[in-house]
């Protein structure tokens, strides 16, 4: 069992939400045993599309809690995250920032800092909490895989928010306990030595840079109307009594004989 899955399970348990009512959409494959342990429904979607797929699930069954786990690091599907923030879709997005792709070794991702990419990259990394906050996310946080208690607490809090929550998790690949190699152990060591908790700090100041410690913590939490709130409000405003607000009760036509 990876530490991340255990942390996620703890976060879900603490939130008091029945795991049955949770759907995880993910663009990285998890081990089926791990998913079974969580007790949720699980959709492994196309790469980068977990947020978009989750949008469909959430809109048509608002009683579900949807957790898109994105591992492709805001390359493929970056636009989906941005727009989910804009329309404040009720999704709890967990972005695994692994510094390098585990599955495709030695390939640098957009978030990669120069220090820890196998080939080193000259590109600037995204500041994910800042990006999410700018796009309208109602909850942003960043933790490393070593901060299990804090991460679990953040997941609990995010699941209780109405709107898009984005939690960045610095983790050297999801199953890292199963095959620690040089890069991973050096990354773990790096987390240990180089992270600093600064709760409530302005997201724009949380950039991951070579010359300073990685800033982790819960950064922002706010309230905004969700997509369905604004959808119902707008159509009620325009149509008045002619509009029946959308409730999301499953609209399968009645079966024969009923």
């Amino acid at each position, binding site marked *: 069992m990876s530490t991340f899955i255990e942390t996620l399970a703890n976060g879900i348990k603490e939130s008091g939400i029945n795991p*049955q*009512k949770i*759907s995880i*959409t993910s663009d990285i*494959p998890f081990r*089926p045993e791990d*998913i*079974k342990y969580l*007790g*949720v*429904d*699980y*959709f*492994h*979607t*196309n790469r980068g*599309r977990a*947020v*978009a*797929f*989750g*949008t*469909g*699930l*959430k*809109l*048509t*069954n608002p*009683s*579900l809690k949807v957790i898109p786990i994105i591992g492709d690091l805001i390359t493929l599907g970056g*636009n*989906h995250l*941005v*727009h989910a923030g804009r*329309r404040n879709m009720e999704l709890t997005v967990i972005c695994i920032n692994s510094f390098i792709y585990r599955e495709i070794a030695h390939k640098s991702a957009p978030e990669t800092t120069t220090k820890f990419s196998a080939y080193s990259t000259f590109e600037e990394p995204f500041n994910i909490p800042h990006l999410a906050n700018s796009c309208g996310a109602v909850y942003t946080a960043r933790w490393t895989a070593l901060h299990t208690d804090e991460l679990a607490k953040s997941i609990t809090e995010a699941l209780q928010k109405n709107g898009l929550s984005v939690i960045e998790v610095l983790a050297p690949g999801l199953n890292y306990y199963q095959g620690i190699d040089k890069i991973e152990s050096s990354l773990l060591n790096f987390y240990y030595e180089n992270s600093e908790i600064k709760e409530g700090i302005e997201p724009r100041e949380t950039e991951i840079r070579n010359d300073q410690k990685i800033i982790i913590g819960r950064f922002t939490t706010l309230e905004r109307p969700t*997509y*369905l709130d604004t*959808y119902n409000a707008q*159509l009620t405003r325009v*149509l008045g009594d*002619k*509009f*029946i607000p*959308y*409730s*999301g*009760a*499953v*609209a*399968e*036509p*009645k*079966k*024969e004989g009923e």
Partner: protein
Amino acid sequence: MKPPKDSLKTGTHQLSGSQACVEGAISAGCRFLGMYPIEPAIEISNYFLERAKTLDAVYVQMEDEISALAAVLGASWTGRRSMTVTSGPGLSLMMEHMGLGVMLETPCVIVDVQRVGPGHGIPTAPAQGDIFQSRWGSHGDYEIIGLAPSTVQEIFDFMIKAFNFSEHYRVPVVVLTDGYLVNLKSDVTIPRAEDIKLEPRRYYDGPQEKYLPFKRDEDLIPRLVDIGAGYKFHVTGLTHDERGYPIMNEECQEFNVHPLVRKIRNYAEKIVRFQELATEDAEIIVIAYGSSFSAAKQAQQKAREQGIKTGLLKLDTIWPFAENRVRELSRKAKAFVAVEMNYGQLVYEIQRCSQGNANTIFVTHGEKGVENSDDILNAIIQASRENSKKEGIIEYAPK
């Protein structure tokens, strides 16, 4: 299963193709539209919103067509009938999720309002250019179902058919209309609720602990369950076994993907639909679909008046292709005249099936050709005078 009465606009109304498309979808129980606006499909999404307001339906304008179809797939898994509307450039983007929809065996309907391409083409000019893309556009091996309505009434009828097919075979169904047809206005008869037959979703009814999401029935279709009901199911776009767990080997690829193809091919004869006119004694058979149909019919009738024994085969389903019927007809007829609003797509299928038996003459037409049957008539005359068997496709060149 019947649609809820209060959602239907039973009676005869003058509707545009776009409106008929939405009425068909609503009648079929569709309650979710995920889309990204594109000409000439915008009218459909606007009208859906208008109809959705009292039906507890919801729509979302996504950030692109990729996410539009992704959201539709997600929505379909919650048990809601879902669709998207788009045009050629959008369909190109949707190809990624067409593949995922096939792999996850997700029922959904994609309405493609075809316009000329490639690239941006002319946003409002109709075409039939997405015939092959709709069938072969995504990677890997798969089969889909494609329907091509040719009148406004047929758009309504075929939308219901499309949802029924997609629920029965658990496959994305593409409805190929075009920019001409969706703007056409005509009388449409919407039946009473009790006269509409809807295919219910194929739910699993055994004990929960024994549920396997990809265990196939005898007809090769796996059963669905509601999500959020404690089935803890695992669904992946990777090659998977009965449990939905990813297994990366050749045996599992065969186990998983071969039925995706067979579940359509084995039942192709049940799916395929076509209409025939005066083919019994016909020497020349015009084959048309979609907007080309009305001009093809005109030409066929004029040719009969001139004494040329001409028949007409109108294809309602494009995919799977009406292979057996075309082959049968090719043994009796002298030539096929294939009419399309493109530079030759479905004619390759026609020629493949008629090869060695009947000649295949191809007539292309644009927007003006939808109402003008001169080229088709001339091609019929040319075909009737040709007495030798020709290899390959003969392109009709207007004088």
